[in-house]
Each structure stands twice: as C-alpha cells, then as structure tokens.
C-alpha cells in the first residue's frame, strides 16, 4: 500500500494537472475558455488533447501528409513481397552478366560498357521495374524498397533513442538543477559544440572498421544499429536543451509546489507531474526528428559513414547513383525523391501537429477557418 502522501499525490495533480497540461500546451489560463468556446459552437467539448485532435483532423494537408507517410511505410514493409514474388531477386543480388527477355527481345542488364538497363516498368513482369543500379546490375526497385526500410528504421528508431535520452536528461537536469544540471548541460554542450554532420562522420568512420563493443553488446560494423545509435545520440542535445528549459519554467509552477508540499517523490513529480506537460513538445520534436534523422542518415550514408554497403538505404543509393549522375540521373533522382517525399510528409504532418497542439497557432488556424469569434468575444 502506498504511503498516504503518495495517495494524496495521485489525486492532487488532477485539478492542478489540467492547468499544467494547458501550460504544457501553452494555453494555461485560456484552456477553460477554449473548451467552453468550442462547446458553444455546438461541437463536442473536451480536454486540450481532444481539441488538438479536432484541430488536427481539420488540417487536411497534415492528414494528407500522414497518409503519404503511411503509404511509404507500407510499401517499404512489403519489400520482401515485391522482391520474392515480382522481381524475383534480392536487394544485394548482382546480375552483371545476365540478360533480360523483354517482348522477345534480349536486353543485357549491364552493357559491356558498364551501363545498366533503364526502367522496364512492367515490360519484364516487374523485374527491373526501375532499372538496374549501375555496374552490378542490382534491381533498383528492390533496393529502393529495402533501402526505405533501412532509412525509416533509422529515422524512427533514432528519434525514439533521442527522445528517450533527451527526456531523461532534460528531466534530471531541469528538475534537480545544481550540479546535476551543470554536469548534464556541459556534456550536452560538448556534443552540441560539434557540427552534427562532422560528429556523425567521425563516429561513423571510427566504428566502420571494428564495429561497436560496449560490454556484452557487440555490433558489427555493417549493423544498422550503428548509424541509428550515432544519429540518436548526436541529436540528443537539440531536444534535451529545450526540454530542460521548459522544465525549469514548469518546476516553478504552483502545481509542482503543491505536489512537493504533498510529499510527492522526485520520481513521481518528474514522471507524473512534469512529463505529461511536456508531451506536446515531445510529440512535435519526435515527428520533426524523424525527418531530420532520415536526412542525416542520407548524408552520412552518402559520405560512407552511415549504412554500410552492400546494404541499401536511400542515402547509399544516392551515393551509388552519383557515380552515374551524368549517364543515368534516375539512379539518384529516385532515392532522392523518396527522401523528399518522406521527409516532406513527416515535416508537414509535424507542423500540423504543432499547430494543433499550440493555441497560438490555433488562433491562426481558427481565424483561417472563420471561427475567430472566441477571440473577439472572450467568455
């Protein structure tokens, strides 16, 4: 049975927590007003999360972007289906000397001059749909789909790592302050002082030969986890510092004082009181981080410090395609377009999410929607 003070703590945040959550969303004292205003429109009233959800649903561009992103993810998840049942080849299988029979015509996958076959679309039953990738004659479509899996894996998992590290460090640093804050902040400063790409290249190249050995954990140099961890770590300060700033502000709020007065433990204050108030910031950071991570992965892989060949990622495909930029620009354009679409869709959705969670942007949104009455006639 928990001590009395903790029992009180579980109940205490309810009145203050709502206000605090509003604070986290940046709507603090206006929260009730918004709820009432929306209820006055005849729509279902609710908490700030529900309101944010409604705002997001109204943002068609953000939803369209989300749909694009999901479509890309689904396509990439279906890579083995395409590889095994359509293209009949693997992402790293070479076809340098093979010939393709198309409408009774024999075409070389790689010409003696080294030039690879171009897109065949469905002429060869889906084989070499987007052509072959240069001198090795690998199926570009299969590599694109598998490459997307790598890029998305790195983008999402690295964002999770960044979030986990940043939230933990931000909470510790912002809540405890003093020496803990100084220690964590200086470490963040050190990482921050390196340009992200340079730090990524340095770590990527250092780990490219022997892999990563951390106690019982041994990651091979070809492991996708290496670029994932690198990207996850190098972006941590960019999320941890703003979170720390927010926590510094939040810990001075009355609801925290109330929790402390009620004898809530530090862990409870951090994870039950503070964390929910950071959720909107964390969610927005997380989505935008996915896009940034994918771009950094592409940059590192292009420079040879990210995903290691022959594994494909969109970055490595751009790098490989760059060798044939003049004669076969499609080899660069295709993965480049894939990155563009994915990053754009995540960014646009992330912006929509921020708009939905940020009341200031709500004002703009509502004004655009012609429902700015609440601003003119505050309750």
């Amino acid at each position: 049975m928990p001590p009395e003070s903790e029992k009180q703590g579980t109940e205490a945040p309810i009145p203050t927590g709502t206000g605090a959550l509003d604070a986290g969303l940046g709507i603090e004292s206006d929260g009730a007003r918004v709820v009432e205003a929306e209820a006055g429109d005849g729509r279902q009233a609710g908490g700030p999360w529900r309101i944010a959800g409604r705002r997001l649903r109204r943002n068609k561009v953000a939803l369209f972007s989300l749909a694009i992103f999901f479509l890309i993810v689904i396509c990439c998840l279906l890579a083995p289906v395409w590889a095994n049942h359509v293209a009949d080849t693997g992402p790293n299988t070479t076809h340098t000397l093979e010939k393709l029979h198309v409408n009774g015509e024999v075409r070389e996958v790689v010409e003696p001059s080294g030039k690879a076959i171009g897109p065949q679309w469905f002429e060869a039953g889906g084989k070499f749909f987007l052509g072959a990738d240069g001198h090795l004659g690998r199926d570009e479509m299969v590599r694109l789909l598998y490459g997307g899996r790598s890029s998305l894996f790195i983008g999402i998992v690295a964002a999770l790592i960044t979030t986990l590290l940043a939230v933990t460090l931000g909470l510790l640093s912002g809540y405890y302050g003093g020496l803990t804050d100084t220690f964590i902040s200086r470490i963040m400063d050190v990482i921050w002082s390196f340009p992200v790409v340079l730090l990524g290249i340095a770590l990527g190249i250092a780990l490219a030969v022997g892999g990563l050995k951390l106690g019982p954990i041994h990651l091979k140099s070809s492991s996708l986890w290496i670029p994932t961890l690198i990207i996850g770590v190098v972006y941590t300060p960019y999320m941890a510092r703003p979170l720390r700033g927010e926590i510094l502000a939040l810990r001075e709020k009355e609801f925290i004082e109330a929790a402390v007065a009620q004898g809530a433990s530090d862990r409870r204050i951090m994870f039950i009181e503070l964390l929910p108030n950071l959720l909107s910031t964390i969610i927005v950071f997380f989505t935008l981080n996915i896009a940034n991570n994918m771009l950094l992965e592409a940059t590192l892989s292009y420079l040879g410090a990210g995903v290691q060949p022959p594994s494909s990622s969109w970055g490595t495909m751009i790098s490989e395609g760059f060798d044939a930029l003049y004669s076969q620009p499609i080899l660069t354009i295709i993965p480049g377009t894939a990155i563009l679409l994915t990053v754009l869709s995540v960014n646009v959705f992330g912006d929509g999410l921020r708009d939905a969670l940020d009341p200031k942007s709500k004002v703009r949104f509502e004004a655009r929607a012609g429902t700015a009455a609440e601003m003119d006639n505050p309750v």
Partner: protein
Amino acid sequence: MKKLPFFLLVAALAAVLAVGLAACGGGSSTTGTSPSTSEGGSEGGGEAEGGGKEGGTLKGAYTSFPDYMDPQISYTAEGWTAMRPVYVPLLTYKAASEEEGAEIIPGLAKELPKVTNGGKTYTMFLREGLKYSNGEPIKAGDFKYAVERCFLTNSGGSPFYTDIVGAEQFSKTKKGGISGIKVNEKTGEIVINLEKPRGTFPNELALMFVAPIPQKTPAEDQSAHPIPASGPYYLTKSEPGRGWEYERNPYWAKDNGKQMTEIPSGHVDKIEIEVLRNQSTQVNDVESGKLNWIFDPPPTDRYQEVKEKFEGTQFRIEPTISTYYFWMNETQEPFNNQKVREAVNYAVDPAALERVYTGQIKGTQQILPPGMPGYEKIELFPHDVKKAKELIAESGVKDKEVTVWTDSESPNNDAGTYYQGVLNEIGLKAELKILNPDNYFTVIGNRSTPNLDTGFSDWFEDYPHPNDFFDILLNGESIQDTNNQNFSQTNVPALNEKIDKLAEEQLGPQQEKEYAELDKAFMEHAAWAPYGTRTLSLFVSENINLETAIWNPTFETELTSLEFKE
C-alpha cells in the same frame, strides 16, 4: 639608301634563322621561345616536329594533389608523372611508349653502369658541366645524398636500396652516411657496392627516388618548397592541395640538354596544373579547351561517351602494367585451405568484373600482367561456379564467416560488392568492409587489423621487371607487421627461394622463362584471385597533338611530349 638594304638583309636573315630554329625544335633543342600566357592554354612560338608548335602554356588538372612533390618521397603515379620532367636520375627510362619506354638509358650518368665483382659493384660517371635550375653545379655527391635522403625521410622507396653496403645500418642510425657509395667529385665517378647481386638494381637506379638533388636540401618533405631541377623544366610554384607550375629550366638548354639528347626538352614554355576534384568538370573543361590535358581518366560515368566522341582525335586508351586481384589471407581459416582459394578463383569471373570496371580492365587470371617481361598467358581457373561450390563443400568450410575488404573508390567498391556476392554464392558468409582509399592500404597492411580475410588490391609496376610483382607481393620474407604489401601473407619457402635466386640475376630470356614458371606456380598455389589488368587513357584538348603524345609504361603521360597543334 645603303642603310636600308643592309637593314632589310639583316631582318631577312633573322627571320630565316628564327624559322629554321623553330623548325628544328621538337625533340631535343628548344631555346629562346619566350613564354606567353593567356586564358585556357595559350599557344605561341614556333613549329615543332610533327606539325606541332613550340611554346605556349599547357594547362592540366589532377583530381588530387600527388602524395608528395619531392622526388625522394613520392611513390605514386601522380607524383612520378608530375616530377618526370623535373628530376633526372643517373639512369632513366626512355621517353617512349610500350616496350621502348621500358628501356633504361643514361640520365645524368655518362653511360650505363659498368657492373663488376659478380654483379655487386656498379660504376658510373656523372656527366660534366651539369647544372641545377638555380645555377648550382650538379655533383656526384648529390646522388649519394639522394640515396641517404631516401632513408632519412623514411621513403617508401628506401627498401629498394637496402642491399647497398652500409644502407641497412644507415637506415637504423641515420648517421655516418652509406659506406657502400663512393664518389669522386673531381672525376664524377660514382661506385656503388652491394651486399649481394641484385638483378633489378639498374631499374631501381632509374627511379625518381635516387634522382640527385642539392645536398643542402632539408631531409624533410619539400612539396611546398620545390627543389631545384636537373631536368628540362623546373617547378616555379607548388601549393599542396591546389596545384603547381613549371617553366623551362634555363640551364637545360645551355648545359644539361646538350648532353642528354635522349631526354626530350619539351614543347611548351609553361605548364600549369590545378587540382580539380570533380572529374566530370575536368572532362567538360578539356572539351571546351579550358584545360589541355587531364591526368586521371574520365569518370566511369562519362568514359564511354568520351571514348565514342573523341577516340583517335583527343582520346586514346593506354595499357598499364598492372594486376587487379583479390588476396586471400593464407594464414587463417578458411583461406589457409587451398581448395577454398581454388574455389574462389573458379567463382570470380573476370568477364563480369570487366563490366564492373566499365571496360577499363582486361580480364586476366595470373600474377604477371601483359607487357611485363616473363608474361605468358595462363588460365588455370576457367569460370565455373558449380566446381567452386563443390570445392567449398569438400573443404568443409561452408557458412564460414569472412570479411571482404575494399576501398570506396569507384569501381573498386563495386568490385568488392561483387566479390562479396560471389563468396556468399559459393557458400561462405561474407561481410563487406569499405574503407576510405586514403587509409585503405595502411589498414590492410597492418597485420594486427582484425578479420583480415580477403579483399581487393592492385599493383602497378614500379619498373618493368617481373621481380617487382613477386618479391614485395608474394615473397614470404617480405611480410611485415605494418606497411605489409604481401596481403595474402603467402609464404611458400620453395617459391621464396626461387624469387631470391632470380632477384640476383640480370634479366634475360632464361630468367623471363623462369618468371613465367613462377607465375604459374603461384597460380597453382592459388595465392590470389587475379581478375584483370587496367587500361588508362590519355585525354587532351582539341588543340593538343595527340599523335605525338607519349604514354610511358612507368611514368604514364610524358608531359614533355605534349605540344600544341599548328
């Protein structure tokens, strides 16, 4: 009235003389042409042999700055091509193409060395009255200093000279000089005593490493501070990472060139080389005439286009004496098993790799490349994947994990990827490691690097002698902990002995036959999986005379052979 006809007569005589002198230019005598510079490789001066012009400024580009612009230290084709017109060794290679270019001729030495004492003593005489580009006389002692400087700077070329008496000791102490080299400044006599006969020594005396330089030259890299020249051109400027420039050596025409008539004097007055990283831009610049010559071949992406458009007029494919191969570390599993090495040889298909290299290699399956003395075509392992799989099954190493090493330079990275696929196909589990080309050979040359199983390498001749392919690359005695070149760590005592024996003999028909046998023996041992010999190319602008341009098998483009068209 009398003055006018006399003046006209003098003017007419001067004009006739000028035309006559210009027409006699070309090969060996080019004097008095004033430099003229302008944008985009300017032309000027008189007519050269073969319908070319004398004078003008040649503009060229390299993709990267050579390792060093210092004759004792540079050990790359980039460096040797760049310094070939500047520093002349006692012996040198004829400025000619193909086999003729492998002929050793006297350079600063009056004649070829007199070899006595059972092949252990070489005696030469320095030509008289030679001068460096700064006017200082060239002395016999400068040769001795050049050899010592090789050791003082820890040059990669120093192992070529460790058989000189006292050199081994000097390499350790760096003090006291090399006792095996005796010079007489008055007579110009140079006597070199060797510990044991060395059949390749004349070739090694013709390398840039031992080109005489002034003895006051510091024993440290002088890439940014050009050393005075003994050849037809001198370096006026050298900025590592950016480029360098040449002008005619004023003492070449007056002194040196008159004696060294077999060394061409060059046609242009100035040469300006810039480092231009983007190879596609280099091609564009040559097409537009902004550049007159590029060191590196067109990028693989544009190779065919350039070939189709300019072959015969501005573009020429040139052979190299080189071997591209996959080494297999014989000291550890699974490549300590000969069957596995044979399986790899059967599985690797040179025809596929020809495509990977966009036609810039010609498939071979042996150590010695075509053009090298001792080369006799053999093909012990015709492509047969089924047989390869059988051999792997017999050897009992199926699913053994191996690491494939290659560098990131295209298409070597693709060759590594292809090779990894081949190993996986025959039943091994291969992981690919691609390193930056700048440190690739350092990493795989360090025996403490983990998982040195197999990988890509290539070797271009240092000099046209088959020993250059066996002694460093396959002799067990040459295995080193660091800077190792015997990547397969091949160590077959009987073959080591054979290499050592042949190394002491002067190259002749009998030795060439024995080198051919050695080539076959190493391939039977399946020490490597060789897959090709590289072809390079010469690409010049429209206003450069391609016909007279010389491609030397060791020094590649002879800059002294490039001339503007009439």
